[in-house]
């Protein structure tokens, strides 16, 4: 019933708009007036072009004022993070300048040269020198950006085995994450989804006969020691997923049938990040919003929202099915001692199997 009613209302609104437009249309003196822009149209729209330029600038300023904290460009928590942020800021400055200037020229010309009856435009079809200039300027700018970008990319993607990274597997499945630590030997045991045995709780398909697998540790939270390079090996058991860790400027797809990898060094512990004034302020603001929402919920007799506390997160960032929107894992960066303590408390693979 409500459905029918809504449809009727929608229909009503549509007809109303239609009629309004029609009235407006009829009000345009007579139907036979020319539908080609005259001097008045040119003038009105010319000024509107100028106003639109103002609108573009204003929306830019407002956006930067309100949302200019840009979490993806500030407060990175990994060793390579500042490199990416610097490159991002340089690119954004270049873009900002080009955008401001070209939009000005475009809309200002559209205003300045609005048509007038009897005026003739300048017959100006070519100028090799000008065209050469605006080919060569982008070439030089882009060459710089490409070089800088490629160096940064190579630095990030080249994994230096000599750094003795901690090896951790990120294992994706619809719709949650698991982490597997390599244990004492720092070598991940062999694994394949064909070896998954739910009866004895071998949920990641580890090779039970592989000696390297015995001391592996499977967890549902990702703990990382600060200042140590970590090499992630990604695996997926069903569909494509993407391991996205925005605070660490890290992302890699998890692909069924192959192992992908990404490495970084966390540099800021969760505790330190929570004390960072900007993050502190952001969290406070979010809690203000949550409190307001909670009040509304409680007024309807529903549960209030939990208080938010900052945590690093691993999100799924490749469409993976119904609950894609809720596929996440908490990441905790801590001192090496705390990390080792935590690791010791976890069950190793050998002991986690259920004996039947």
């Amino acid at each position, binding site marked *: 019933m409500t459905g029918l009613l809504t449809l009727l209302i929608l229909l009503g609104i549509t007809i109303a708009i239609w009629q309004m437009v029609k009235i*407006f249309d009829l009000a345009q003196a007579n139907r036979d007036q020319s539908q080609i822009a005259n001097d008045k149209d040119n003038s009105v729209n010319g000024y509107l072009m100028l106003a639109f330029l103002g609108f573009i600038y204003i929306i830019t300023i407002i956006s930067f004022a309100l949302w200019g904290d840009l979490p993806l460009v500030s407060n990175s928590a990994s060793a390579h993070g500042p490199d990416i942020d610097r490159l991002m800021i340089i690119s954004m400055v270049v873009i900002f300048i080009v955008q401001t200037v070209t939009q000005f020229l475009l809309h200002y010309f559209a205003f300045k040269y609005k048509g007038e009856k009897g005026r003739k435009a300048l017959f100006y079809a070519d100028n090799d020198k000008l065209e050469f200039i605006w080919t060569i300027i982008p070439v030089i700018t882009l060459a710089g950006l490409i070089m800088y970008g490629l160096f940064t990319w190579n630095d990030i993607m080249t994994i230096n085995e000599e750094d003795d990274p901690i090896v951790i597997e990120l294992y994706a499945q619809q719709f949650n994450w698991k982490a597997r630590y390599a244990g004492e030997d720092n070598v991940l045991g062999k694994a394949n989804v064909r070896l998954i045995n739910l009866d004895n709780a071998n949920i990641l398909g580890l090779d039970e006969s592989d000696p390297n697998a015995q001391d592996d540790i499977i967890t549902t939270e990702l703990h990382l020691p600060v200042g140590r390079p970590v090499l992630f090996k990604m695996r997926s058991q069903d569909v494509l997923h993407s391991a996205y860790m925005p605070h660490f400027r890290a992302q890699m797809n998890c692909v069924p049938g192959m192992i992908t990898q990404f490495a970084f060094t966390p540099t800021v512990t969760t505790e330190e990040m929570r004390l960072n004034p900007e993050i502190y302020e952001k969290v406070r603001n979010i809690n203000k919003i949550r409190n307001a929402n909670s009040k509304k919920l409680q007024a309807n007799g529903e549960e209030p929202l939990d208080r938010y506390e900052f945590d690093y997160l691993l*999100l799924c*960032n490749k469409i993976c099915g119904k609950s894609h929107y809720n596929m996440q894992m908490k990441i905790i960066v801590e001192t090496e001692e705390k990390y080792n303590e935590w690791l010791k408390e976890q069950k190793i693979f050998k002991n986690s199997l259920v004996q039947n």
Partner: protein
Amino acid sequence: MSAHVDTHTHDDHGHHHKETFVTKYIFSQDHKMIAKQYLITGLIMGIIGILMSLLMRMQIAWPEKPNVVFEALLGKWAPGGVMDADIYLALVTIHGTIMVFFVLTAGLSGTFSNLLIPLQIGARDMASGFLNMVSYWLFFLSSVIMVISLFVEAGPAAAGWTIYPPLSALPLAQGGSGAGMTLWLVSMAIFIASSLLGSLNYIVTVLNLRTKGMSMTRLPLTIWAFFITAVIGVVSFPVLLSAALLLIMDRSFGTSFFLSDIFIQGEVLHYQGGSPVLYEHLFWFLGHPEVYIVLLPALGITSEVIATNARKPIFGYRAMVASIIAIAFLSTIVWGHHMFISGMNPFLGSVFTFTTLLIAIPSAVKAFNYITTLWKGNLQLNPAMLFSIGLVSTFITGGLTGIILGDSALDINVHDTYFVVAHFHLVMGISALYGLFAGVYHWFPKMFGRMMNKNLGYIHFWVTAVCAYGVFFPMHFIGMAGLPRRYYTNSNFPLFDDTQNVQVLITIFALVAGLVQLVFLYNFISSIFYGKKTEQNPWRSNTLEWTAPIKHIHGNWEGEIPHVHRWAYDYSKPGHDEDFVPQNVPMKDGEEELQH
């Protein structure tokens, strides 16, 4: 180098047929009628696609709340008015598919290539009217199948418009990967056949049927754009067809092209040895050129509309042609920038970063040339002109952020966030839509013999322009907050709570933008019947289509096809009284043709 057409056989052709209703309006082989068919089918699909985007926007802004609109439109997919998470992904998928392929490829390129290629090069019709008709009806069939797929029991395809396997391959992974995905694949296979027939026809027509004097270097930029677009289509669409066929094999016949080592819902599947990354390569080998298949016709239309309404020659004709060709070439070697973090070798990432950023150079040349064309013009700000200027604006804004996304090191971070959504909607979605609108306003008199109402056109443009920026400009910033796209709701991430008010703002702009399209629809439909009758050449344009009679006749021109004596851009040329000199006007004594 110009081809001379034997006009006699075609002339006879024009007078002999007795046309019935069916041959004139339905199974028509006349390119002008087929263009209208493409346009109207495209507009209907566009209405569906835009409606879907509004449903998504309402869900994102007011998640998990009962909404009467959902209840009314989605039925069982919104029990109690709360949208189902699966159907959200289906909306994402079908919105993308419909807008990219059905509206902006078929609706835009199909309409204007068909209408303008024969008329602007001076041909009686397409090289093969029959193939042209088949092309349209295959497109129509694929549209019908795509719409039918919305109503299957387990839901339509919901793996994103890129339909990456294994998600798209396994009904166990997602409801939409059952019959809905089968229909999607069938529909797309038919669509590709349609597109290939169309493209081959365009290429052959441009190469062989130009009138006397119409050398390649005198072609209007519209034709250059359509021609090169068709070439890209012929090169890249077959690769998508192969991907679709292999995916059908994997889904239905147990092969393992794209699948390996899968454990789902408690069982190990038999697939072994395939790779989803292979699918990604095949898909994006079309997927990226597709961006230019969508965009180049819009840029071609813009070139023509801007030159005509600026009353000035398009600045740097040769550079414009060269940049179209450069973009087309580069577009086939940049696909990997969609896959920087797919698990492919990082060295490949470097190569694709390099080629991708190169594409910014011809794009920049085009933008600067448009701006220079405006300089010292005598701008007639008709609705078509406004949309063309709007296109240049969104093309710049959207294109510039490509510098960030094309840079592999930066893409790690913003890949698949709302930043990407904002980028491609501005640079290809909005820009191409503006191109479509510019084309409709400009060539409506040619199509229907009547004029569209300019004041409604102005309202349509200005509200749309403000809303387009209102939607997509703030969207960059929620992307920069790390918000992933394709999330049914963000309420499970308190981290993003402070972006929710931006989402609401965006949705309001989107709803207003959606509503104002009704003004366009009204203007379009009512003008077909009641619009002011057009004059022969309302925009005082140089190209040949305005020399053809207003009333459509089979064969386009009574008597001989006009001969061409000059390029299409002799606007405001010194030594002429009028500020335009149509292409069929012979050179005066001593008049110089520009070296082109």
